[in-house]
């Protein structure tokens, strides 16, 4: 096989980068603005095509996964430390690239319609292109530092896109929050990189994995700390406890952004990173359980909050956090296949859900509140059924994509619990099942509320999505229609949704085995703590069945029960829901206020820190500067005391001079006589 044929993959990040520059140029002129979307779509699509072209090269002749390092140029080299612009291509990279460029293309096409007429049209596509550049760099990076570049790069794009409607203070605040919370995680990541270099003297994956393969299973303490530091970065980027707070607020961005960045791709970077560095995580006996526990806790936590939210996008945001929790659970039980599989299916159905939510929002002039809409299926039939498929997948309805992947995670967890006789994993699996029920419930709560029941709606306050961004009078036809009544969106926007819906329904079934092969051929393959490492003989059974099969039955039941419950409370008998809510008013209030975590953060971290800032400032001005000024005060006093001597009278100086002379002469005389 010709190794260098794969080098064409090096262009994958740079096409979107070029597109970002071109779109940036488009920003400057109103005439060029319309070019931005085609350029961006073309670039991402081209990247997708390149991905497909490079795809065959990551397998050897026997179909086993191999890796290639494709060197582009020297980036940082100093004193033995090397971090180059080079790309590491293996099956895991390919999976991620397909998700990123594939979903990216679809979302970009959707956005071309969705953002039409927006004042920041070109700016949007510039940022999206930049994001694709950063994200592809992230998944293709050959070393930790380049990964970090992509990592921070996607954070930047997230910042720019959340704050896209920068006239809205809430959007700016959300953007800032996202960046800063991510930075906290990034610090952990950076320290992890330092420690990795410190311990292994390299940050390049190919070398690192080679070293790790020969590591003794009893790793030293510093080595065991590395995964915990990296984990912090992953938690920040993938919105896990306790660093999840930025993601719900990130919904201030345009909906395609929420779909692409905050659901399908960027937030899964943490999952990718742990999967990529799985050999490192395996070195510590505590790292993976921690990941699993945090993942499950996050899943549960976010799912409960999602139960009581009314904002469609926020519900999906919490749902995303919850689903990411599942992925971390999958990683935590060393089932990287399941985690990446869920990542893949989630990308499809969550992107679909966000984009359909965007369609609803689009047609209701920015209205997102569940309480102000109902029975929309008559107005927007296509959107209605597209979202239905997405909801099915999210709820884990049998044979949809989410069903397979979620199932695999839960089954692997349970298996680990049963075969290893570990109570922890059993509990986690049960909790995961409970979250599955909650997921099915809140998903369909939303769908029934929006599309079922009597047709009733209030248009949003805003003329578009976000603030009024048409002061220059540029307004599309769609915007004018807003003022009349809701409508179905055009087919430019619906076409990508159809593809996504197909993915949401079929990806699970189709990719079921493929993903396993891909992961087994990559660095994410568990070596030490693989499930069933003790051999097939210990393959656990449940109710006399193969565990995976049993889990399918269980979760199917749970999904159906969840959907049925939601149907009862939110479609057939909405009054009952209100009564239940009234009965549990306290709990509902806590959940509706997201456990008051934002308030807690504000009063425990932000305000005290800012107060310390003020204290420092005062200290700086008064004490430190004061001290310096006091030091300066002493000569000043001397000066003040001597000042009368210099009063400008000629004879005053004369007296001084004569005195000086006399004293000097006197001194000389005293010495000599």
């Amino acid at each position, binding site marked *: 096989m010709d190794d260098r044929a794969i080098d064409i993959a090096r262009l994958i990040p740079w096409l979107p980068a070029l597109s970002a520059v071109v779109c940036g140029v488009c920003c400057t002129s109103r005439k060029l603005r319309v070019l931005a979307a085609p350029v961006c779509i073309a670039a991402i699509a081209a990247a997708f095509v390149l991905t497909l072209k490079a795809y065959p090269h990551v397998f050897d002749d026997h179909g086993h996964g191999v890796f290639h390092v494709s060197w582009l140029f020297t980036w940082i080299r100093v004193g033995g430390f090397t971090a180059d612009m080079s790309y590491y291509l293996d099956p895991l990279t390919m999976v991620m690239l397909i998700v990123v460029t594939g979903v990216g293309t679809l979302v970009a096409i959707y956005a071309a319609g969705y953002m039409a007429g927006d004042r920041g049209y070109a700016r949007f596509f510039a940022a999206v292109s930049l994001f694709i550049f950063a994200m592809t760099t992230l998944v293709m990076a050959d070393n930790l530092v380049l990964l970090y570049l992509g990592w921070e790069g996607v954070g930047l794009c997230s910042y720019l896109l959340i704050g896209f409607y920068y006239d809205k203070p809430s959007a700016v605040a959300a953007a800032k929050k996202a960046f800063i919370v991510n930075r906290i995680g990034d610090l952990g990541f950076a*320290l992890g990189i330092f420690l990795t270099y410190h311990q292994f*003297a390299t940050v390049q994956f190919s070398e690192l994995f080679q070293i790790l393969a020969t590591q003794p299973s009893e790793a030293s303490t510093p080595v065991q700390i590395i995964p915990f530091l990296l984990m912090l970065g992953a938690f920040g980027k993938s919105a896990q406890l306790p660093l999840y707070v930025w993601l719900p607020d990130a919904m201030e961005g345009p909906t395609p952004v929420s779909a692409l960045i905050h659901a399908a791709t960027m937030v899964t970077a943490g999952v990718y990173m742990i999967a990529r560095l799985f050999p490192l995580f395996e070195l510590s006996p505590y790292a993976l359980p921690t990941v699993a526990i945090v993942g499950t806790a996050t899943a549960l936590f976010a799912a409960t909050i999602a139960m009581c939210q009314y904002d469609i996008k926020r519900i999906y945001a919490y749902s995303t956090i919850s689903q990411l929790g599942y992925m971390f659970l999958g990683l935590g039980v060393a089932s990287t296949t399941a985690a990446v599989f869920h990542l893949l299916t989630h990308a499809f159905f969550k992107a679909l859900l966000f984009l359909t939510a965007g369609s609803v929002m689009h047609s209701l002039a920015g209205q997102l509140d569940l309480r102000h809409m109902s029975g929309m299926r008559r107005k927007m039939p296509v959107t209605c059924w597209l979202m239905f498929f997405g909801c099915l997948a999210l709820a884990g309805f049998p044979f949809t994509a989410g069903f397979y992947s979620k199932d695999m995670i839960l089954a692997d967890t349970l298996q680990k619990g049963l075969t290893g006789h570990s109570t922890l994993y059993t509990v986690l699996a049960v909790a995961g099942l409970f979250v599955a029920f909650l997921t099915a419930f809140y998903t369909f709560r939303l769908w029934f509320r929006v599309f079922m029941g009597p047709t009733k709606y209030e248009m949003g306050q805003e003329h578009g999505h976000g603030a009024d961004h048409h002061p220059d009078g540029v307004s599309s036809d769609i915007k004018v229609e807003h003022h009349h009544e809701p409508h179905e969106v055009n087919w430019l926007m619906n076409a990508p949704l159809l593809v996504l819906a197909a993915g949401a329904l079929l990806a699970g079934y189709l990719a079921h085995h493929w993903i396993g092969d891909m992961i087994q051929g990559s660095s994410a393959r568990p070596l030490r703590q693989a499930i069933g490492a003790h051999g097939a003989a210990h393959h656990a059974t449940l109710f006399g069945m193969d565990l995976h099969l049993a889990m399918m039955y269980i979760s199917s039941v749970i999904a159906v029960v969840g959907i049925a419950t939601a149907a009862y409370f939110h479609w057939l008998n909405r009054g009952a829901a209100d009564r239940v809510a009234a009965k549990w008013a306290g709990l509902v209030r806590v959940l509706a206020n997201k456990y008051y975590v934002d308030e807690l953060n504000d009063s425990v971290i932000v305000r005290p820190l800012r107060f310390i800032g003020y204290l420092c400032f005062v200290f700086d001005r008064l004490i430190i500067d004061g001290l310096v000024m006091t030091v300066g005060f002493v000569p000043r006093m001397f000066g003040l005391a001597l000042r009368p001597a210099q009063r400008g009278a000629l004879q005053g100086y004369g007296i001084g001079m004569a005195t000086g002379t006399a004293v000097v002469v006197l001194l000389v005389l005293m010495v000599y006589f």
Partner: protein
Amino acid sequence: MMYSPDQLLPLLVLIPLVGGLALSLLPNQVVPAMAFVWTVVTLAVSVVVACLAYQPIDGNPAVTFLSSGDLFFESFIPWVDGFGLSFSFGLDAISLWLVLLTTALMPLVMLGSFSAIKHRVKEYYTWLLLLEAAMIGTFVATDLIFFYICFEFTLVPLFFLIGIFGSTQRLKAAKVFFLYTFTGSMLTFAGVLYVAWFNASQTGLWSFEIAQLARAAQAMSLEQQTWVLLALLAGFAVKVPLFPVHTWLPLAHTEAPTGGSVILAGVLLKLGTYGLLRFALPMTPIATVVYAPTIATFAVVGILYTALICWVQKDVKKLIAYSSVSHLGFCVLGMFALNTIGVSAAVMYMINHGLSTGALFLCIGMIYERFHTREMARMGGLARVMPIWAFFMVFFSLASVGLPGLNGFVGEFLALLGAFMARDVLGVGYAVAAGFGMILAAIYILYMVGKVVFGPVLIPEHDDQHQPPYPSGHTHGKHAHVRDLNAREIMTLTPLAVGCLLLGLFPTPLLSSLKPAVDKLVEPARLVLAGRPHGEATIDEVTTIIFIDPTVQHGHPQDPDAARHGH
């Protein structure tokens, strides 16, 4: 006979000096343009110097002037022979890059000042050119006294730039700036004179050649070195400025005219770090090793402390000024890691900070020129009315925050890595603590960007009280027509943006050219460290706490290369 490039360095100092003096002969109208052209000429000469430095010697592309780490292009103009005084010039990679930074910033400063300075034009540009001469002189001097003369002379032009062209509190600022830094550097002068005396008493010959003094000073006892190090710190730490002697900086920065702020942040602060690099490391290696943790502690405290202060500022310029203190903390931290990575990072950081913070000051200056205010509460959402400006502002803010791909990241990351790797000197605790500075940097910069660039549009009403003493010619009635950047302003910022991006993506030509020189600087400290037994009190306690088991830690090899073989 081949042309000798040795005379280029005196020329490099003389060009701006002569240019500055010659400006006074020109009519007022052409002064700004001529000053600009003149700095471009200087830039061209410095680029020629750089090209010659990179030229292969004897046709071997691997061997250039830079590859040995020695001084090159040395030349001497005798001065006082009896005391070994001469105007001696020489370059190594570190000074070459700093000279390039100086000469590259200067034309931009000139360009950025065209509309801001309308009165006493001639003085302004004359002082700037003299300042450039002094700064270049500081970087190329290899004679102690010559270095010191140039170092001190930088104060004079800046004193007048702040005092004449600054804003409301300019006189106080100029005075504080001058006295603060001057007092410190007098002590430094005493310290280096002591070293010169020591050298004379050892060798019987007076010499002020820095390299010779460094060789001689290494023979001093720890106590002597400590005093010398203290004296060096008195001048250079004030100049950097290192916490807690930083309080002159916010005032000076805030009150200085834009051009002055840019030069101050861009180059003058680097004189402090450059001084530490040139003197502290080679002259007092023992004291440096012993006190590196102390100095680094001050650096780290400064990083966090000033970052927190930045967050509560109301004045944009003051915020950026305080952020300089925070940033240079990273630089000092990297430097006192005393390893190749850290010191290279420190040099890289000097250049990065010069570019990005200089550019931020230019951006703020453009706002000040339009609105005559720097208060964040009075402006907002400028992205709506000045999108091009907003682009640059956000770009440079991100460079300042250390976004990978831009220049700030490389320096910051490597400085932290250097501190992290320097187990014998600093250690993990310093890197972790300084790492929180990265978070705080994001907080305050985004806070500023969020207030000024984003948010609802708020354009400051013009306020007479905030009018500078010499208002620009630009009319500013109702802000109905806030104009975005014009071509000249874009031309001012674009080179800096390109520089940030280039250094962010291709730092290696810089880093690899620095390596020989940096290795030379680090060598004395490395020897001291090599001679010291492990496990003494120098092993960082914080490391021990983080790595619960100290025995594991001691078992690990110090050297990354050794580690590679070990595993």
